[in-house]
């Protein structure tokens, strides 16, 4: 079983780690997610149905684990905010800095802005953008991973791109105002 897991790790470890990095943009969290994904693969390998592609199955687990991780972080942040109101003490929640080893050094600053904008998208749009625009999956593959139709993916991508443009142009306007001052 472990040997089989090792082979799967060799084949899909990098793509899982990369997907996690696109979601959290932080090495520590991405490693934790990758670990959770392979533990889940180990636990549910017997349930894997051969008619599905193993790539899509693994990537679906990865996407779900990433979303779970982000929801957990959001809950933790909300809990800390409520606790600070109740106790009057400041509960510090650390904001992880941008640490994405998959981004070229010369593009770090610009890509940080783009990832900040991606982080503001709703979950489904974010997932569609990550799988298609960053991971290079086809519309069909993205639909299978997200368990939805190709039409729905098309609409998610178009709305996601539009929203990204809006966020990025607002950001650019803000920067222009700052520089003219």
């Amino acid at each position, binding site marked *: 079983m472990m040997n089989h897991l090792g082979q799967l790790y060799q084949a899909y470890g990098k793509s899982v*780690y*990369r997907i996690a990095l696109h979601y959290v943009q932080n090495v520590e969290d991405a490693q934790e997610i990758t670990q959770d994904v*392979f533990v889940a693969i*180990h*636990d549910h390998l017997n349930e894997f149905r051969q008619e599905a592609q193993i790539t899509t199955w693994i990537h679906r687990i990865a996407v779900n684990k990433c979303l779970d991780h982000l929801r957990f972080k959001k809950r933790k942040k909300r809990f800390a905010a409520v606790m600070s109101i109740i106790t009057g003490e400041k509960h510090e929640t650390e904001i992880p800095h941008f640490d994405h080893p*998959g*981004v070229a050094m010369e*593009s770090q600053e610009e890509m940080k802005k*783009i990832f900040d904008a991606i982080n503001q998208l709703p979950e489904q749009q974010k997932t569609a953008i990550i799988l298609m625009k960053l*991971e290079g999956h086809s519309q069909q593959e993205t639909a299978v991973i997200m368990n939805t139709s190709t039409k729905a993916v098309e609409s998610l991508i178009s709305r996601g791109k539009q929203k990204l443009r809006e966020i990025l142009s607002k950001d650019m306007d803000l920067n222009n105002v700052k520089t003219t001052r």
Partner: protein
Amino acid sequence: MRDIDNISAHLVETELPPYLFTRIEAAIEQKKKVHIPAARTWVMAMALVATLVIDLYMIRNKWNEQQIVSVQSLIEVQDNQLYHE
């Protein structure tokens, strides 16, 4: 740069940390150790329920006994009073 269709062009090959698979293996081993088989969980749950039932039965019995003793002592007191009168 801000061409959203072309953002993947700014990505480079990502290497996996060398220790990550060892960490995964350790996490799986740890999970196996902590894992309690379903049958054992059932036995433990049933034992807990049985203990609770026995406890409740004993508490009720003890309470009944106390009630009987208090009634008996009340009768005795009344008897004594009647005798003295």
